[in-house]
């Protein structure tokens, strides 16, 4: 195993920090190239007129998921050493719902709002300011939220562990579902335009 480079000691703390703006730059570049800096385009997903968000998001997820699976399989990347976001079922269900409502209202998500703002879109700047306000409100109300915030914790739980089936099987099911989704998305766009 040679990767993650930060965990196997190939790059140090400085190198890790140095990689951050480079990785971010490439991420922002592709978001903008795909048109995800434009709020009406993103919001179009909710009315089935423009499914770019779905296509970009799931082709990205599929690429990273399959890449990580094969690199781990061939012993290049040790997935045990990659940080997996911890699961808190109810906070993530409620947080996801609040986020979805905000996404619909704002038409941009946190990353794409920065891209929109950087391209001169004032609505992007408004989303950025709103996000910061939301975080301040959350922090101010933390005493009341803390118990719920920490509830239904499962730790770094993966679908593989939860379902007790192999990683390859989960990856295959998601890959097939995503490809089916792409086909359906294209049909929907064709009939709506």
């Amino acid at each position, binding site marked *: 195993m040679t990767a*993650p480079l930060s965990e196997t000691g190939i790059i140090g703390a400085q190198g890790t920090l140095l*990689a*951050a*703006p480079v990785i*971010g730059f*490439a*991420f922002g*570049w*592709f*978001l903008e190239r795909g048109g995800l*800096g*434009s*709020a*009406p385009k993103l919001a179009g997903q*909710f*009315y089935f007129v423009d499914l770019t968000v779905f*296509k970009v*998001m799931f*082709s*990205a*997820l*599929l690429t*990273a*998921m399959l890449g*990580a699976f094969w*690199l781990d399989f061939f012993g290049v990347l040790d997935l045990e050493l*990659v940080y997996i976001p*911890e699961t*808190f079922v109810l906070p*993530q*269900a*409620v*947080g996801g*719902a609040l*986020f979805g*409502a*905000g*996404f*619909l209202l*704002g*038409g*941009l*998500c*946190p990353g794409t*709002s920065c*891209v929109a703002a950087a391209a*001169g879109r004032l609505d992007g700047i408004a989303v*950025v300011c709103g*996000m*910061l*306000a*939301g*975080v*301040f*409100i*959350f*922090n101010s109300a933390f005493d009341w939220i803390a118990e719920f915030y920490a509830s239904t914790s499962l730790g770094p739980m*993966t679908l593989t562990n939860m379902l007790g089936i192999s990683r390859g099987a*989960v990856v295959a099911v998601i890959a097939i579902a995503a490809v089916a989704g*792409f086909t359906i998305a294209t049909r929907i766009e064709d009939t709506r335009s």
Partner: protein
Amino acid sequence: MKRYSDPYFAGIGIGLVLLASYVVVGRGIGASGAFASIAAAVSASVSGATSPATAPYLQDGVRSPLKDWLVLELVGVTLGGFTSAWLAGRMRIDVERGPGIGSRQRIAAAFSGGIFMGLGAKLARGCTSGQALTGGALLSVGSWVFIVSCFATGYLLAPLARRLWR
């Protein structure tokens, strides 16, 4: 003005960036975490103290958001977006909105949407980048809970917000 890339081309590009992030730094990409770090640093410098809500973002006495991985990454996202928009001739000062509303209404809706997303991302411990993409590709259960809940709510409420966009 150049046309946008094919969505699958952009998606595969983002997927390779995310994969590179796993390989190089052992973690995925994010966005809302950087907002949380900046907000925590601002709160701490104003009040001179940390709280249970802000302390996790200010470990080891690190008060400068510029030493935070996600903040540096989000600076990169902004520069990358700027460079791409500039080279494609898409830079312009504008308020992008649906045909049925004015600029002021759009700004108000955008700000309110941001508040909801700030609250939601804090509660869910991530957003479309840190949860949906990063955790989704790593098969995290909570990330898939977030993906389903986020988009189900968006589609469910969409008819109510129709005037904003159509």
